[in-house]
């Protein structure tokens, strides 16, 4: 029996402006099992990042539920949500969001410090993490002194620092070249397996779907779920694009 500890039920997210109401998510449902790797596939603007933000509790849904161990997370107080993010979620942002004034090591220490670890302990553990992502020699480098791939590795180390049960990665390879992207994905998968974490990542690259247990395609605010086996071969041709946007007549 599948161990689903996160359930998303009829999740709706809209953005209102003076001109219009934009429906990004129009009642989506899915579940996340422990140790499961899920890939969200969709074109730009399909709602992938919005879904991750809602899962991480850094955005509020317009309607619907996200249940974590059967608890609706958006009914929690801000502090409870902060606790949830701190202890259960590791977030890898598409744009890194590293603190520019802190070194690679210090950036990794932040979640540990926020959790209340002593500075010395946080430092010791962060050094190990840096080594585990292959950046042992860059501990004292500032973000502006790192390449994009190195920055992403720091982000990965920061995300797993608090041993979360769910790792969320928003376009982890989006700003990287193919080789570096592959390296990051490999690193992520190894860490996830090693620490028995679930991983949800987004991508608009059909190629990356091969690494996931489950692929969720976001189209026009709705989701279609596929297992790895069920998922059709999707490439970079016109037909694949039409599949992703959910419109066969789309030119």
């Amino acid at each position: 029996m599948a161990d689903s500890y996160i359930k998303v039920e009829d999740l709706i997210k809209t953005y209102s402006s003076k001109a219009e109401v934009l429906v990004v998510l129009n009642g989506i449902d899915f579940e996340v099992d422990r140790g499961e790797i899920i890939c969200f596939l969709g074109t730009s603007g399909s709602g992938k990042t919005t879904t991750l933000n809602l899962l991480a509790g850094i955005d509020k849904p317009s309607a619907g539920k996200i249940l974590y161990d059967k608890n609706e997370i958006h009914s929690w107080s801000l502090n409870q949500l902060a606790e949830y993010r701190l202890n259960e979620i590791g977030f890898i942002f598409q744009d890194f969001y590293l603190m520019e004034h802190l070194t690679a090591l210090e950036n990794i220490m932040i979640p540990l410090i926020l959790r209340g670890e002593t500075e010395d302990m946080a430092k010791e553990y962060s050094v190990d993490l840096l080594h585990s992502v292959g950046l042992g020699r860059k501990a004292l480098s500032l973000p502006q002194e790192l390449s994009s791939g190195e920055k992403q590795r720091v982000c990965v180390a920061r995300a797993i620092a608090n041993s979360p049960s769910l790792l969320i990665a928003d376009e982890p390879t989006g700003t990287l070249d193919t080789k570096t992207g592959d390296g990051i994905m490999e690193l992520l998968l190894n860490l996830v397996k090693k620490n028995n974490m679930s991983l949800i990542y987004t991508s608009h690259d059909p190629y990356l779907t091969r690494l996931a247990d489950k692929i969720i395609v976001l189209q026009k605010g709705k989701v279609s779920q596929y297992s790895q086996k069920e998922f059709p071969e999707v490439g970079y041709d016109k037909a694949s694009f039409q599949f992703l946007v959910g419109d066969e007549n789309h030119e």
Partner: protein
Amino acid sequence: MNELDKFVGEEEEISKYKKAISSISFNIKLIWKNIINRRRSITIIILGLVFSMSILFTASIWSSTSQKIIADDYLQTLDYEMYVSTFLPNHMQPVFTYVLDDPLVEDVHWYYPTVALFNFEGKADNYTWYPEEQQDDLDDPLSISAAHIVSSAAMERIKLNLEVDGDASLNQGEIMISYVQAKQLGVIYNKTISPGDQISVAITRYIPNTDIGEHQMVYYDIDDTTFENFTISGIYKYVGKNTIIAKMLGGIGNTGGVLLDSIFFPKESLGIEDLNIMDSNGLIPKLLVKVSGQELRAAGIADMPDTIYALKERIEFRYWHAFANILSQEIQAMADEYTRSFGSTVVFLPTIAVSIILTILSSQMTVRKRKEEIAYLRSKGAVSGQIIMMFFGEFLLISTISLVLSIGIGILLSGLIPSFGHDDGFFSKEFFSRYFSYLEISPYYIEIFTVLVLGIYLGMTLYNVITFVRKDIHESQIMTKRGQKIIKTSVKVGSFVLILAGFIFLMIEYYRQVAGTSSFGFSTLSISIQALLVFIVLLFFICYFISLGINKIIMKLGKVYKTLFKRNSFMILKNLKRQRKNLTDLTFFLVLTICLLTTLVTLRSSTIYNNEIEDDYRMGADLRIESLLSVNISYMEETLGQIEGIKDITGFQTIRALWGTQIRIEVYGIDPDKFLEIGRWTDMSFVNMTAEEGLMTLDEQQAPIAVAGGVFGVFTEKTSEKGLILSNYLVRRLDLELGAEIEVAGFTGSGETQFLTITGVIESAPGLGVSHGYDPKMNRETDDWVLMNKKVLIEELDVHNGTLLLASMKEGANADQIKQEIESMFPFLTVNPEQINPDYIGYFIDKYIPPVTVILLAGAIILNVIGVIYILISTDFILEQRRRENAVLLALGGNQTKVRGLLISEVSTFLAVTLLIGGPLGIAATAFSLLFIKPLLVAEEVIPLVLHVDGLALFIILASLCLAALFGMIPIIRKQMKYEIVQELRAIV
């Protein structure tokens, strides 16, 4: 050129014109849009500019307006400003005509001195009245009194010197008599003389010379000048003031002299012929001159003494026989006091300077916030000139708005501020409207201050803009960063050294001017103001250099942060270590603000403390007993000494004398032992000796006097009691030394000349004030006083009278009870008067210009507000810059309480460190500034001005700064926390 070309050419002209208009209109719209979009920062800049300019405008308008009111009001309280006398009979008329025609003169009144006789009826021509105690009919004696013949208009002014029971008028058929005269007439007529009573009086046209045997009634020449049934309109007492009447008729210590026993008689009741006869008989009239306030103050208060002196010179130049006496000391004192009072507003300058800094820093922040905008404009092809012009356009608009507001506020404030706190209520409408009727605006100062403030603002804004523009196009690479740093540091250190050198020069000049004097005049005040201004600039530099050091210290306090903030210390330390420009600015601003706040508060507490002990010192002892009449001191000592509660009492026999031919001195006879015991002496009263050593030099028993080694020599020999203690100023100025024998002559009423030895040098004495210089607070007319042993005055000069006694009280005695007892026993005595000279011009000026303590307090409060505003602006700016960081922290699991705590801890760290440095620095700055700003704070240094730290006031003002800043931050932080994490992450990339 054909017709078509002309047409095309004309079309091109119109097109260019339209283009220019369109471009200007577009730029104006752009500037306006920029201003509207940055409402908050623009509002702060406008507020800063308006505050700085309006305070300067207020000071300028206030200065020019208030001096007109002060001069007018003060002159209203004076009877006259001048009297003119002559020694040639029947020569005053042309002088009168000339003086009256002088544009400076408002009115001239005649004054004739003569004698009035009462109870003269039935006395034969050969009735012998002299000597008085042996006149012919002692049972029904003739009463003789001094008579002042003046017009009713003159009486209107003279009555300012009198306290009148009844009506202070002098109409036809009325006379006014003195209190003493009324008592004498009461004895003669055996009834109480009251206002409204009718009496016969004879005005004499000649005053007999008893030295040549003119002892009979006939010599008075009263045949045509006897008046029956004159009504006594009022009975007056003389109340001492430094006025023209006091100068003309006053006695010792302003006791009134001939005014004590005299009458006023209406000039209109005497015929011209009678007056001419009097004049011919040697009763030569004097002219009482009232000047026009408007004319006298036309060139400002500072020129008033010279303007009136010029009138004196004009009269004496034309009429060699005439001599004009003016209230030179009083008018000079007013000019000095006004300058000092207004000069003291200079202590407000740090507040204005900080306000300008606030404006500059806000402007810097605005420019820094617009880095992207500048970069975008450049990327779209805008050249440096266009970007600078855009900022210049904004400057023009902001400046115009600020200037209009500042002038309006300046005018309003200059009338509003002095209208508060008057006797007629919290706010005086009458005064407010009066201020506006006197309103005077100097375009010159408006222009100067505008150029000053806006120039600084424009300069700094353009500097910042150009710096960004240059960075953008890599022009800064012309020089290496290290080279730029060296140049910047050299400019700062060089400027500091230059200013320091200037300050040292001013200090030397100041000490040269104040050496040996305790009274501060215009020149000392001026040099003191200059020194203060330079010191403020120095203080800015010092705070700047210290703040650089603090930033380094702050970063090296890791262990302290760990102890204080536990696990938050990591983030706090990392944030503090960023060394961003705005953090450096914040440190500088906080150190400066806290230092200046401490300085203002401590200067205020020192001044208040000084004023309190100075008042006590001027009062002299537990009980200060002043007499309206000159009384026998020994008798008073004996009588009052018996009152229960009085422990010991000593009085001062007083006489005026001349030293050389010019130096008028007031001589006080003292009992050295008692004066030492009763008086509130300080260590600084005598020069280089204690009060005991100084006073004992006048003691016959102990005097260890003589000279060896100059003024401050060692005393080895015993000398006589005929010592003299005189002012340090005279000793230095006349190159005298202890032990020198000097000749003092011209003791009033005595032909005696005394040879006295200088046995002590004094700066001031309790109860008597400063020993040199006009001391208007003491209601003393002469410039200098000296101390002698009272035995010399009593035994050798036959001087027994005086007007002042000091007494100490027994433990537990009630001063009010003793005061009541003494004043009921002797109505002419006043015990512990609220103010020794209630007409002191300083109290009068306080009505229009707040005393320096109020200015210091107002400065501190405004500085406090500016400090809080800057902390909040700065916090807001820092938080704006950290919005993404905070969003990331929250996204990583940080909770709002923690993030909020981090921010508050950071600001608290800055506040705590800058408090620890700025506070002591402020106290040190105060202690140092007291060395040269005494003239701004006190009129005379009666006692040494010392540092007095009012811990409570300091705590309140600094705590209010910190609390207001911390509480003020809450809504800013809350506002920041309201931003949605996702929006922040998405918005700021």
